[in-house]
């Protein structure tokens, strides 16, 4: 098994009269036997990054940088190569909002069995591991509850036993028991030498299963380090504000509006909302190079 080496990846979308800077200069290494959680404000670029790794970006997107998985650069590979050798085989994707990705005219069972046949897996086992009962499988997508559709998507991503799993909000609609079951499954995969990139708003889940947490703001990684350090001892003012907004903590929002990705400031993108901002923040802070890294001129 090999590392995923994301190196200076940026993604831009061209719109009429504007460019959206959705992902900015992201570098991250994911090793076999490691789970990294990617967290951050809604709209900060998490899903776009995941889509870039699997070649699922729309036509108006432009990427730069590289994402190497062994001998393939995922950003340079052709769609044919990704479809036949990468998706489902080397990288499993649990997409966000899975109900809109399932084929409406086929039962969950037929979709899962086809995936199992193509990828060489065991449909029954994957369904069971995802917490589905056999009777759920005979339903059509519109007959599935949100949480069931989520479990079907989880089973579809796991059935080919890919060494790297990218899970985009995989706990949506699941109750605590099911979330715990899924996290245990992720932990088993990781202990078996798989790698998991978990994109989530559920910071408790991230805390529980991830080895490291990366915090994104305005398309950049602003803090990355050991899970408990990042959540309980955040260095970046944004990461601190995010952790404190949890209902078990202050339950207060970070003041101000989210950044305009079509018109980002030259310096720190968090400055308009940051209590600690001073003049130096007009220069863009760079991510430090230590095990608990932060991109901030005046870390907490």
């Amino acid at each position: 098994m090999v590392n995923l080496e994301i190196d200076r990846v940026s993604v831009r979308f061209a719109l009429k009269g504007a460019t959206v800077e959705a992902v900015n200069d992201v570098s991250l290494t994911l090793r076999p036997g490691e789970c990294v959680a990617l967290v951050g404000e809604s709209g900060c670029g998490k899903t776009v990054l995941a889509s870039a790794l699997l070649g699922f970006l729309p036509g108006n997107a432009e990427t730069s940088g590289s994402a190497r998985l062994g001998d393939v650069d995922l950003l340079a590979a052709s769609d044919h190569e990704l479809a036949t050798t990468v998706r489902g085989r080397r990288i499993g994707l649990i997409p966000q909002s899975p109900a809109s990705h399932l084929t409406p005219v086929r039962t969950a069972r037929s979709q899962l069995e086809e995936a199992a046949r193509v990828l060489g897996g065991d449909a029954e086992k994957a369904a069971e591991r995802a917490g589905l009962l056999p009777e759920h499988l005979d339903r059509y997508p519109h007959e599935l509850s949100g949480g069931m559709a989520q479990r079907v998507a989880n089973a579809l991503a796991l059935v080919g036993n890919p060494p790297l799993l990218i899970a985009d909000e995989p706990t949506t609609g699941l109750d605590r028991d099911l979330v715990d079951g899924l996290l245990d499954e992720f932990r088993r995969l990781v202990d078996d030498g798989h790698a998991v990139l978990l994109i989530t708003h559920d910071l408790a889940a991230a805390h529980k299963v991830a080895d490291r947490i990366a915090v994104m703001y305005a398309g950049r990684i602003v803090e990355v380090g050991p899970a408990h350090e990042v959540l309980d001892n955040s260095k970046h003012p944004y990461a601190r504000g995010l952790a404190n907004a949890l209902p078990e903590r202050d339950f207060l929002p970070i003041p101000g509006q989210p950044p305009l990705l079509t018109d980002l400031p030259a310096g720190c993108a968090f400055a308009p909302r940051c209590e600690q901002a001073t003049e130096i923040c007009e220069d863009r802070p760079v991510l430090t190079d230590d095990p608990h890294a932060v991109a901030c001129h005046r870390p907490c």
Partner: protein
Amino acid sequence: MLTGLGITAGYREPVITDVSLTVHPGQTVGLAGPSGSGKSTVARVLALLHKPFAGTVEIDGETVTGYRFKARQRTKIGVLFQQPRLSVDPRFTLRQAIAEPGADRVDELAEKVMLTGDLLGRRPHEVSDGQLQRACLARALALNPRYLICDEMTTMLDASTTAALVGVIRAYQQESGAGVLAISHDATLLGRWADETVRLSAPLPR
């Protein structure tokens, strides 16, 4: 008052049996319960989108007579679903989606739900799931609902945006006296958000 009385409802078979629930004006009631316990079915019945097998729904003292397209009283109730992608017309820009019910306050509402101006001209596939959910909240508030039903509204949102939107809904309740039914798996969230919480029990194993 929004009341469900002895509601039994489901699809082929009932998923909820004899459920009663009341939301008073200005109040926030939490609805919790494990996956499959029928929380979304309760939401759909109270939003007059799904006809129950038995039981009645009353809105401000008036018994509901029609469900789905026949439902005259439905404009009194706003609903937010767990998956915004399934509830927005993909051809509409966010501005059109928010204005769809005939609102002229799009910019004001957008700012409240923290949607920056650049997003309003985009279509659903050009924004993130959480951004789309925020547009759905703006659309729901545009109708000035007497009652707002939030079915797992915040699972697509980060902690800070969740806290902000709960604040937006509370402010709306303050000025309008609207009642809210907040459905979530997250007991801690409901503990902070709701005045009281009702629990549905697990479905019987079949």
